[in-house]
Structure formats: structure tokens, C-alpha cells
């Protein structure tokens, strides 16, 4: 279901570059190389390249009277996509995704710092397992769990009222707050892991010498730690921002469907309106933005390597 799509970017370790071994004895070896790669290529071709190609192609055609695609070339989908109505949805999605990313960074950095620098090896492994533990349960189920916690008659409001802390239920659900909360909750591990990886590889002696020379903790953070882990920060931000932007179950369930994000809009065009061409155009628009982000990320990583940061 939806979570497969939205969570996939977490699968890779950030920015680790492994150079492939150069085959030294000729044809047999390179054939073997292609052979071992072919399942991956097949997978990529069937499940990524073909659907993407179809999206691209159908975005240039018209919707039939009963859905489907009529093969008549048109650019109408693109002119329609820049209508303020849809740009407003895009802008709202970007805002929500940015907010989510910022909160994840603020919450994730201390956690990653603690795990990477202040724990024994055993403790560290245990904590890392805890970070990824939520992924063992389906994203939708975890999202429904938040409804149980946050709703007017839910666990949190009941407890607050029973303790006499509030007189009336707080509006915790079906608003922007709930959407951001759900997104932060869902994607926080994708921020912690790359930050952890970057911090863990940081030589502690650099910070220690700064300390010995009289630098205060905040200054160490600003002038030493953060610049050195920029690639990790960028990776974490991309990993959180990308799936947040396209997420549709969270606005639907926790937002109560009161506002829609790009993911909901695309979902609605494909299913309710049966307008595959226009849905494809919107999906392409979203992908274009995300690709730009990935370009920025790779630029930052390259600069990191140029100035000698091992990422």
C-alpha cells in the first residue's frame, strides 16, 4: 500500500560511495557482471522505468469520456496544472513538508548526537534498533493508532480531563497540527539515521581539542560539528522532505481530509476523477521538484568530498 511508496527512500545508507572493483581479466568477467546485474535491471525496467514512461506518455494525452486515455496529443494537462487551484495545493504541501523536515531536524539531531557519542557500543545498537522498530508495523496501522490517542474522546484528552488539567477536549486531531505530527512521527527515523551515520564517523578528537582550547559547546556545534556533518543533514532533510511531500494517508486520516496535499490530489485524479492523464501530469510535477532536490543534494555531497569530509 501507500507506505511502500512513501518509505522507500530510507532504504539506503546516506551518501556512502563504494567504487566498483575494476574487472581485470576480460570478457568472461564482464559477462558475469552483466548477468548478476540483470535481475536488478529487470526489476528497474519493469517496475520503475515502464510506469514512469507511461506517466510521461499519458500526461500528453486526453481523458476519455469514461476515464481511460484517448491518444490525442494535447498540452492542456500542463496548462491546467499551473492553475492557482493546484499551485495552492502544491504550496501547502511544500509548507507542511518543510515544517516537518525542520521539526525532524530539531528533534532528530540531539537524539542522533546522543546515540553516536554518548553511549556504549551495546547501548548504541539497542537504541538504533529502537529507532527503526516502528518500521516493523504497517504505517497505516500506526497512523490509525494516533487517531485513538488524539481524538476528542481519545486517550490523551480523557487523561488530561481526568487529571483536571483541561476542562474541555483539546482539538488535537483533524488539523494541521495532527498532519505535521503524523509526518514527523513517521519520518523521524529517516532523519536520525543519516545524522547518526555522519556524527558517528566524526573524529571526537576534533571536538575535544576545540574544547581544550576553550571553545564553548554551542560554538563547537556551530563552527565544527555542523559544518562537518552537512552532508548527513542534507541527506536526512531530503529523506524526510521527499516522502512528506507525497504522503496522502496522513492528511486523509489525521487531517480528517479537511486539507489536501499533492499526494491526495494525485490519488483523487486517478481514482475519483478517473483522469489518468491529468493525474500523471501532477505526478510528474511532483517528481520534477523532487529530482531538483536530489541534484542539490548530490552537489552538496560532492562539495563535501572536495573539502575532504568523508561521507
Amino acid at each position: 500500500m501507500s507506505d511502500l511508496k512513501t518509505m522507500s527512500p530510507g532504504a539506503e545508507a546516506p551518501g556512502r560511495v563504494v567504487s566498483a572493483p575494476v574487472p581485470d581479466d576480460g570478457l568472461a568477467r564482464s559477462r558475469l557482471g552483466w548477468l548478476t546485474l540483470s535481475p536488478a535491471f529487470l526489476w528497474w525496467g519493469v517496475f520503475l522505468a515502464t510506469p514512469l514512461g507511461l506517466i510521461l506518455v499519458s500526461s500528453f494525452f486526453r481523458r476519455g469520456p469514461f476515464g481511460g486515455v484517448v491518444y490525442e496529443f494535447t498540452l492542456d494537462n500542463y496548462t491546467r496544472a499551473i492553475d492557482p487551484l493546484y499551485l495552492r495545493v502544491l504550496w501547502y504541501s511544500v509548507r507542511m513538508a518543510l515544517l516537518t523536515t525542520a521539526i525532524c531536524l530539531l528533534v532528530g539531531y540531539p537524539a542522533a548526537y546522543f546515540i553516536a557519542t554518548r553511549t556504549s557500543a551495546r547501548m548504541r545498537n539497542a537504541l538504533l534498533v529502537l529507532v527503526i522498530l516502528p518500521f516493523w508495523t504497517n504505517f497505516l496501522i500506526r497512523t490509525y493508532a494516533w487517531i485513538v490517542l488524539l481524538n476528542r474522546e481519545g486517550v490523551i484528552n480523557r487523561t488530561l480531563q481526568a487529571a483536571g488539567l483541561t476542562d474541555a477536549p483539546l482539538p488535537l486531531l483533524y488539523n494541521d497540527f495532527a498532519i505535521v505530527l503524523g509526518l514527523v512521527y513517521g519520518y523521524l527515523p529517516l532523519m536520525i539515521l543519516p545524522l547518526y551515520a555522519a556524527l558517528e564517523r566524526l573524529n571526537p578528537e576534533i571536538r575535544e581539542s576545540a574544547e581544550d582550547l576553550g571553545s564553548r559547546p554551542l560554538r563547537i556545534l556551530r563552527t565544527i560539528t555542523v559544518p562537518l556533518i552537512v552532508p548527513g543533514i542534507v541527506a536526512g532533510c531530503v529523506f524526510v522532505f521527499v516522502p512528506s511531500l507525497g504522503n496522502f494517508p496522513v492528511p486523509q486520516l489525521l487531517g480528517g481530509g479537511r486539507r489536501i496535499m499533492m499526494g491526495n490530489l494525485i490519488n483523487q485524479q486517478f481514482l475519483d476523477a478517473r483522469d489518468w492523464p491529468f493525474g500523471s501530469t501532477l505526478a510528474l510535477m511532483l517528481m520534477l521538484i523532487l529530482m531538483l532536490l536530489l541534484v542539490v543534494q548530490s552537489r552538496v555531497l560532492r562539495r563535501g568530498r572536495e573539502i575532504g569530509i568523508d561521507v
Partner: protein
Amino acid sequence: MRRRTRTGIWGALSVSVLLLAACGGDGEVEQETGPVTLQVMNFANYMPEDIGERFEEATGHTIELTLTSSNEDAIAKLDASGEGTYDIVFVTSPFAEGLINADRFEPLDHEQIPNLSNLYPEASQLAYDPGNEFTMPYAWGTTGFCYRTDLVTSTEMDSWNDLLDPSEELAGKVTMLDEDRWLLMPALKVLGYSANTVDETELQEAAELSIQAKDTLLGYDAETFYTKLDSGEASAVMGWDGWCNYVSDPSVVEWVLPAEGSDLWVDVMAIPKGSRHLEAAHQFIDFILEVENGLWVAENILYKVPNAAAMEALDPSYFEDYPNMAITPAELLEQEALRDLGEGQPTFTDAVTQVKAA
């Protein structure tokens, strides 16, 4: 009615790869004779479990069931497979109408369906397929709202305005449906317009009214609204009649069919073009129209059925426990049948998007 899960875009698109490959020919299809295996496509849990065994006993034919999660899913499956893959398909009326217009169904031969006489006369007066030329109704109903009598003190709940512009005690405790065709329906009805309108001005007015209503809405919910009524999170929820019957304590829940009118939806059976088992498919439709099978739907899904004989056989306690089961076919037909919007669908969806994006 349509139950659905939100299938991914990817699934839909990879299906369309196959779609491109599947283009059927025209003309008479050669029929298979003897005992055959009918390919039936239906929503999950929407027929008695032993239907296959009983059908085989009665006719010698077996059935193979393909499950669908939604109308969109059913159509994607039809599109993705060659003609003749399926012999029977269950879809909801506006979708069926689209398929009729696209010439995707075999005409029904009423001679081969003697159990047609079990149906109400109203069952042949459905606007999307008058005279049941292509489709046979299986279950039908309308849309309204239900509320908790123990949480709402007002005794005059009879209008869509009770949801769109709720009283103080209801403000913030109302949910409405956000499925494409149902999101604007209350506003359209209050304004006196058709639920099938594609007129931009009318849609615009309805969108504005619906946007105002968002201020007093708890949220949109088309999947779990009856559980929100159960927990008391919501006091009144818009919903399909049958679904209001799924609350855990029906005795504190009241059903309302708003005075401004509502829609009529019908889940139908049809034979997709190219079936090689026309005779057996007709036998299946006839078999489904037997009293026993209609009764099963009424008792288990809590939907009304167009099968007069089945509704007469239904224990009267159902009408007391679930008042919307007692809506008569004549009352149902006073509601507006949902139609396929054809080329107007994108205009309609734009208005829906406006509401959702506001």
C-alpha cells in the same frame, strides 16, 4: 455499495501496460457448451460464501470468483484483461452507465431470467438503464445522515442544513463524505440543483457553500464514520444508508433521509462483452435473483435489495432495528439516480478539489 481501499497509482499504471496489449475483436463470440466455469468479479464478502456450491448443484456450472476492492479496481481489472475473461461483473450504477455507454456489456435476454418476476416494478425504472437492458440490480440505497439521539437534543433533524450549517451543539461534531460524487451532493441538493450537474456556475455555488460548511466540520470521513459515531467523537455523520446500520448500538442512532432529497445508488450485475458463457451467465443472474440470495444480502450486509420477494421474506424486526431498511422502492426512486458524468467529470472534480484545498 462501493467499498474501497486506496490502491496506489503504481498499481493502476502497471495495469495499463497490459491494457495497451488487450484489444479485443468484434462480432459474435463462439460459445462454450457443457458444464463451464463462470468467471465472476465481485466486491469481497458481498455474496453468500456457499454460492458456488449451490450454483453448481442447481446448474452443473462452477464459478471462479475474482475480488475487487472498489469500482475503480473493477474497471481497471476489466480493462486490463481481454474480452471474454469475465462472465459476470458487479459494479455501482454510475460506473455501470459509463460501461454501457462504452459498449462494454452484453444485452440481457430477459427470457432467460425468469426470476426477474421477483423484482419490484421500480427495479426496471432506473434512469441509467431503463428496462434493465444491460444490468440487473443487486442491492440499492441512498445517502443521508445518522445521529446519536443521546448526544443531540434537537428534535428537528431533517435537512442537509443540519450538517452544512449545524446548530451550536453539533458544530465541530459533524463528519461528511468526501468521495468525489458525494462531497458536493448535500450542497447541490440544498441549492436545488441536480446531483449530476456539470454546470460550472451551479458547481461553483455548491463549492462555496461546502467551503463555508468546513468551518463546523469535524472532518471528512468516507470509511470509518460509523465508528466515530460509536465513540461519540462525532454526533452526526453523513453516510450511505446501509453503513449507518453498522454502528454498535443502533438503538441510540437515528437515520435521516434529508427533505431536500438525495441520491439513488444501485449495485448491479452485468455480463461484460465477449463472454463465451452467455447461457450460464444468464443462469447465474437468475440464480442470484432467487429469494434466498436476496435475503442473505438484506440480513448480512443490511442493504435493501430490489428483490421484492426477499424483502417480504425478511424478518420485520430488521425494519424496526434499522429504519433505513424500511425505505420503500417508491421512496428510493424519488431520489436522484447518480449518472455517469462523461466529459463533465473533470469540471465536477475541479469543484471538489476547490473545496478540499480551501
